[in-house]
């Protein structure tokens, strides 16, 4: 029972966080698009994930994709690494850490 409640909480947290990310980065991307001169630094970064099951990886990828500004480009053959195309990279490591810290954590809370 407790577990159920905990899970539900985790799911709700995930959704809330996602919505926040969605709105915020949407605004960012839309601003970039509307700017007369492009001022972006795109690129592909590597993200080593601790998630293992197909479902987890898929969920993470989808969330990354849904969030404006990032796009899951591929998953390595062993499923341990995600390659992410990002629209504006200030610091690649920071970006990776941010994703890990937010989405990956939240997902793990839901699935484990």
């Amino acid at each position, binding site marked *: 029972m407790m577990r159920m409640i905990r899970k539900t909480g985790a799911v709700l947290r995930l959704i809330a966080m996602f919505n926040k990310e969605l709105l915020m980065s949407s605004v960012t991307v839309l601003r970039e698009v509307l700017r007369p001169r492009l001022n972006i630094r795109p690129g592909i970064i590597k993200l080593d994930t601790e998630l293992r099951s*197909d479902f987890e*990886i*898929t969920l993470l*990828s989808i969330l990354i994709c849904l969030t404006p500004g990032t796009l*899951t480009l*591929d*998953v390595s*053959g062993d*499923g341990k690494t995600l390659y992410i195309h990002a629209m504006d990279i200030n610091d690649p490591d920071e970006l990776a850490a941010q994703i890990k810290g937010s989405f990956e954590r939240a997902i793990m809370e839901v699935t484990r």
Partner: protein
Amino acid sequence: MSVIHFVIILPFLFALIVPIANKILPKVHTGWFVLPLPIAIFVLLLSMIPSIENGSEISGSLPWIPSLGIGFDVYVDGLSLLFGLLIAGIGSLVLLYSIYYLDKSKEKLSYFYVYLMLFMGAMFGLVLSDNLMVLYAFWELTSISSFLLIAFWDRRERSRYGALKSMVVTVCGGLAMFAGFALLYVMSGTFGIRELLETIPQLAEHKLFITAMLLVLAGAFTKSAQFPFHIWLPDAMEAPTPVSAYLHSATMVKAGIYLVARLSPVFSGHAVWLWMVSGVGLLTLIYGSYRAIKQTDLKALLAFSTISQLGLIMSLLGMGSAAAFYPGTSQYLFFAKATTAAIFHLINHAVFKGALFMAVGIVDHETGTRDIRKLGGLMAVMPITFTITLLGAFSMAGIPPFGGFLSKEMFFTALLQIRELSFASMQLWGSLFPIVAWVASVFTFAYSLLLVFRTFSGKAQFEKLEKKPHEAPLGMLIPPLVLASLVVMFGLFPNLLSHTLIEPAMAAIHFTGLQPQEQFMVSIDMWHGWNTELYMTIGVAIVGTAIFILQRRAAWVSKPLTNRVSLSGAYDDGQRLLDNVAGRLTRLYMTGSVRHYLIYIFLFLVLSLGLTMWLEGAFALNTEGMATTSFYEAVVIGALVLSAIAVPFANSRLMAIILTGMAGYMVTLFFVIFRAPDLALTQLIVETVSVALFLLCFYHLPKLKKELVRLPFKVWNLLIAASVGAVMTLIALSASGSRKFESISDYFIENSYKLAGGKNIVNVILVDFRGFDTMLEIVVLGIASYGIYALIRLKVKEDENDRPLGHDGMKYDVYAGIRSNDVILRTVAKLVVVLVLIYSMYLFYMGHHHSGGGFIGGLMASAALLLLAITNGVDKIARIVRVDFKRLTAIGILIALLTGTGSFLANVPFLSHTFGYFDIPLLGELELATATLFDLGVYLTVIGVASTILFTIGRDK
């Protein structure tokens, strides 16, 4: 059915029996089986003479196609009796002759006698018919049996050539005659010959009278080898000699004469008839006789002689028709004498020419050649044959006291008389007739002498021959001997025939113009005193002998007048030309290019529709009552047009496919805008599945070449495409502007739920109101899937070298994605597939009331399967989903069918549906409509079809 019918039918029966008899008794010469038949018929016909002589007719009828005015009606009058006797009489003699002429061990005799019996029956039918169409039937049959007989030795090129030529000419004439008969029917309302003769008065008034006459004459002239249609007869001499004697001199070629005589009462009295018949006859007479002199082959000589003699008879019939200008007067009999001459000469010719052919056949048979340049001096070794030839030839030359002399005298008389005719410009041109005829008679005299003396007298040169010549066996000599004796008899006792045959025949030809109580009294006398005719004959003899003597020395006599113009050559050239023109023309437009064919079709469409539109003033633009256009709709139209126009510019396959898909989506949007949700759904799914199919089928093709074509090619294509588009638009505008009726849609709206129990009207129409359409439409899908399956799987061995036409074959690129990780797709797809499958069932089930239905549901399910296949590979799917989709299709169709078939038991119309609310245990109240069951069939079929197609292609290596 009468005895006359038997006369006609028996030969055909014999034709059937001959092969059997031949099998049973192979040792007996087949000729013996059939010989009794003509003899019996001859006797039978002879026995009819007395009653015919008394002016009565024997007739019988047998209905065939009475509604079309065609009956197998037969009758015997003087004319047909005369011909019948000829056919039976000469037929008997020829048959006897052929038994000795044709070697049992070397020839396929059963074929020969079958053909001959066919011919004989046809000939009897021709002269005994009382119905023009039946006459026509037998007429063609004589041509055909002649065709077969000429080609009896079919390995010979010349035989085949001659056979075809004779058929071409005579069948063409036959067709003209057929048209003429049809015209006569249109004018008179009957095909009955005797009935026709009764309608004569009003016939001549008809505007098509002359046309009909000329058409009938075309038939007569071709059959009777009149100039310029005579060309087939010399080549027909490739036939075995009995055939030449029988068909090509005595009987078949006289069919034209018969026809002219038979229809003379209809047409005579008309200037065109008079001129055509007598003019063409005379022309033929002189041409044939002139050409005969030039021949070195005995049979060719006889052929031209036959042509010439037929011309003579023809011209006499023509001159006899002048009598019709004086019906009911004494002049009538005066001119009718020409007809008497014609009949008399017809008999004479049959007799002497038959004898001559047989004699020549004997010469050929015994010496192995018919070339007079190799022959000579046969008199000593073949005295009987010589005698026969001499008698026949003298009769032909018109030397007294033979029959030929008498008929020629009568001929001269007719020629001199015709000048007295005050009609038809005869007074002006009639004087030419005797001159022409006299010249021709000279030639005739000359070639008759040639025939006899070149062959039988002079220096013997047996060393040039293949065999050592000797007299023929008795059986072969008897028939010509009989004929030769007839030659003598008819000369000495001409009136032997007068009352028995000639008078009745005259009566048949000239039955209208006589004065009351008057009848033909034919009396032929040997001596008329020293009249013009006799002087003419003496002249003929003198000049003719001179030519005979000159013939060896003076080249101008023996060489053709000119080498350049030859009618037979013209036939060959014409045939070649026709083949050439046909070939050139056909190959010109039948290029094998589908593009060309389409261009013809579209051009025709644009021209015909455009022209009609213009002529009919059909264009009407009536914007009243049209729906308004909002801005976004205009934008959507723009998007559709844009994506459509972009396709031809696409430079990759995928691009072209994508743009087409795009246009499809825009069409979907239109369906939404115009409130057709079911359509939109269907279009969407179909479009997507189609795109998938396109990708499936075209993945291995080389890069789409930019169409390397000249500009004109494109411009031309564009021009045609645009004009078709323009025409379609114009019609659309005019049609929507000129709607005159309300559609029947209100009925569907009112009754869809009330009577058919469904709220989705489109679906109700599909499964109920027009459920039959739908049933067939799933059949179409099913067939397509079976076709595709067979197309891909079945590989029949071909004998040709099985290598592709083209250039580069298939290229497989190494793609970079072979090893990529599909974890995301696979995970999501599992969910999606389950969702979509459930949704598809929902769509299917709700279809009767909401949008959806069997199709949409089925297609949706197939889309799910497609996704599954994309993500997991085809083979795996095949392992998991153990369904034979081809059978699923069949099951679907079967279900749809069976819901309809219940109607047979309930005795209601096919596919009638019922619906109702049933209380089903556990499920509670449930609406159950048989229409839903029908739709289930549709649903399953669609899944089966789509899956069959996808997986068949997907698994093709």
